[in-house]
């Protein structure tokens, strides 16, 4: 009894102490959970015939960007209160922060065309925090075209994701480079992260493979079949033309940029055996990294530190993934069974995404699937299970998405998924599309 009384007194004391300090409520948003976000359609702010089309493009793009971000739980539009919201004065907080909408955040705004320009005003409100709800307020202005409106929607979505996603920029403005045969030759193509705006980059009329965009997005390294055999080629996206890069001869393939953009690693058979080499970005200072009998190819740098390289080696028979320091020391085997290729280092340096046939050989029907491995602990998770050959994973700049090539639906196409293996979607349909590479930002 005495103890109970004591206890009671203590808790009373603690409560009053806490009250005296300037501590405040956080509400009920406890637990690690996705942010519940409501995005009502934007309202037209002017009377113009172009408004409805542009509004539809804008609303769809914004919704898809936020839905694909992987950090929000989108509150379904059918629950929203009636009437459009165009400005902060229109918000009735109780209607949004309670059931059935139950949103924590509300993104809303208006769009209006006047003359040839379109102006978009967008806000992000924390509707559970009625006293100071505004998290973000933005205004954009551009030409009144649907592509400009798409970009505005991407920018606004990225801004929201940057605010609410822990300072990691959104990927709505990132680009994916890939190899497509739809023009008759295997050429490098590019598209937006959501599969829109697919366009051809190279027109070499030969076979071009393994495009790798530089960290600053200005240059594209790839390998293609030339008169002297397979060579590393360089395309400038600033100049929109090929730029000179030394020809090393002897099956030079699979280039990879260091994260600071100053070095390039690739594989070449200059010594008679396929080995890894590095050069600086202009192709000078060739250095040999490996010398071991057996295939060595597909290098990739640790994207966070730039201090390590992961690659595929056939030195023990079937190809396996290895890591080493960037100077060639401290070689470690990462996988030790099956057939493992295509390492891709995550932006935070913690994971390797690989394509792995875990049991390879007769009597062991295995499909190539995308796996993710924690480099330090060597724990791994299988991300694809749906059959077909899944290969060439590449990480999104925010580390929340992986893009890869899959033949599960017949021909080889490019698929995207969240980095936990959910939300898999196909992005391409025309021709054969392979070897995707996501831009660094």
């Amino acid at each position, binding site marked *: 009894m005495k103890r109970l009384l004591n206890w009671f007194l203590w808790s009373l004391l603690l409560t009053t102490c806490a009250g005296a300090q300037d501590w405040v409520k956080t509400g009920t948003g406890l637990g*690690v959970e996705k942010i519940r976000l409501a995005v009502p359609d934007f309202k037209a702010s002017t009377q113009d015939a172009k408004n409805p089309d542009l509004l539809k493009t804008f609303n769809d793009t914004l919704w898809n960007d936020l839905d694909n971000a992987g950090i929000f*739980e989108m509150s379904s539009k059918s629950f929203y209160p009636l009437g459009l919201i165009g400005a902060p004065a229109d918000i009735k907080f109780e209607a949004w922060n309670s059931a059935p909408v139950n949103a924590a955040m509300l993104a809303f705004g208006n769009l209006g065309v006047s003359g040839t320009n379109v102006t978009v005003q967008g806000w992000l409100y924390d509707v559970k925090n009625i006293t100071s709800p505004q998290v973000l307020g933005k205004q954009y202005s551009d030409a009144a075209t649907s592509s400009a409106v798409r970009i505005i929607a991407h920018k606004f979505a990225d801004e929201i994701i940057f605010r609410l996603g822990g300072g990691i920029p959104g990927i709505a403005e990132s680009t994916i480079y890939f190899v497509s045969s739809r023009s008759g030759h295997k050429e490098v193509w590019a598209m937006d992260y959501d599969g829109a705006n697919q366009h051809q980059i190279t027109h070499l009329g030969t076979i071009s493979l393994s495009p790798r965009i530089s960290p600053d997005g200005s240059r594209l390294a790839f390998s293609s079949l030339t008169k002297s055999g397979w060579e590393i080629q360089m395309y400038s996206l600033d100049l929109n033309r090929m730029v000179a890069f030394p020809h090393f001869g002897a099956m030079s393939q699979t280039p990879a940029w260091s994260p600071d953009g100053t070095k390039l690693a690739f594989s070449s058979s200059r010594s008679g055996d396929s080995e890894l080499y590095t050069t600086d970005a202009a192709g000078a200072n060739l250095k040999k990294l490996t010398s071991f009998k057996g295939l060595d190819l597909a290098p990739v740098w640790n994207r966070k530190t730039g201090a390590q390289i992961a690659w595929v080696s056939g030195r023990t028979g079937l190809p396996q993934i290895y890591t080493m320091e960037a100077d060639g020391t401290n070689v470690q085997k990462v996988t030790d069974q099956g057939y493992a290729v295509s390492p891709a280092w995550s932006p935070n340096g913690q994971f390797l995404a690989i394509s792995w046939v875990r049991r390879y050989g007769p009597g062991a029907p295995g499909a190539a699937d995308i796996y993710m491995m924690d480099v330090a602990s060597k724990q791994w998770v299988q991300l694809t299970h749906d059959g077909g050959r899944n290969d060439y994973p590449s990480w999104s700049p925010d580390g929340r998405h992986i893009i890869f090539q899959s033949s599960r639906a017949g021909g080889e196409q490019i698929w995207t998924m969240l980095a936990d293996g959910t939300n898999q979607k196909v992005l391409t349909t025309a021709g054969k599309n392979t070897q995707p590479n996501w831009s660094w930002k």
Partner: protein
Amino acid sequence: MAASAEIFFEHDRWGRNLAWSAGLHAAIAACITLYAVVVHSQGGTWGTGGGGDAMGVTLVNTVPLPAAPTQTQNVLANESKGLTHSEPKPVVKEPDAIAIPDKNAKKKPKPVTSESRQKPQPEPEPEASNVVPFGEGGPVSGPYGVFNAGGAKGGFGVTGGGGDFGTRFAFYVQQIQRKVSENWLKYEVDPSVSQSQRVYITFDVGRDGHPSNIRVEQSSGVPSLDQSASRALQRIDTFGPLPSDYSGNKVSVEFWFDYKR
């Protein structure tokens, strides 16, 4: 007579050798079995052993992705323990059967162990004044969040400027909580530890969102847990820039980690 005695004698010696031999064989067989068991149990690292069920399932939690949506727990009516220690009810053990008192039995005076006779218990430790009793009735006051991830729990408090950071920028506070919990890799904690004291980490968040000044304020007593907690912070480059309408140049955060396997 002597010959037969010799035969008996030889038989006797042979039997003993046979027993020794059988014993040694059995011992060798046991050694081999033991060795195989030990080697297989220890050598079965990732990837070998080949079972399709060898997935490191915990990894999914460590992916820098938000976890699957979990049901929000009502703070006021959940079953999780509060910050303050609540004493469990003493279990009163009912005797199975009451012995019939025997008149002739010698009465032995039982030592009295009533509560009044016990050594006075130490007073419950006063918690730091900024710790709010959580889930023990009464409104929760304080910018505290609690998260659950794979059986482990953590929470935090934030101070900044005029002390109203938590009210004005609740979304940022939640962001800190989310990000730290995502970056806490529980496999770094010594696997032999199943439960431990809470570890308090304090750090500052600068205007650019970068955590600095990461210190273990109060150790849990488990070095690997302390380390995994500070590593969770070190792993984070940024929480995102502080809200632009916030005037201070840093926010101080106290974050606690409760570990339970």
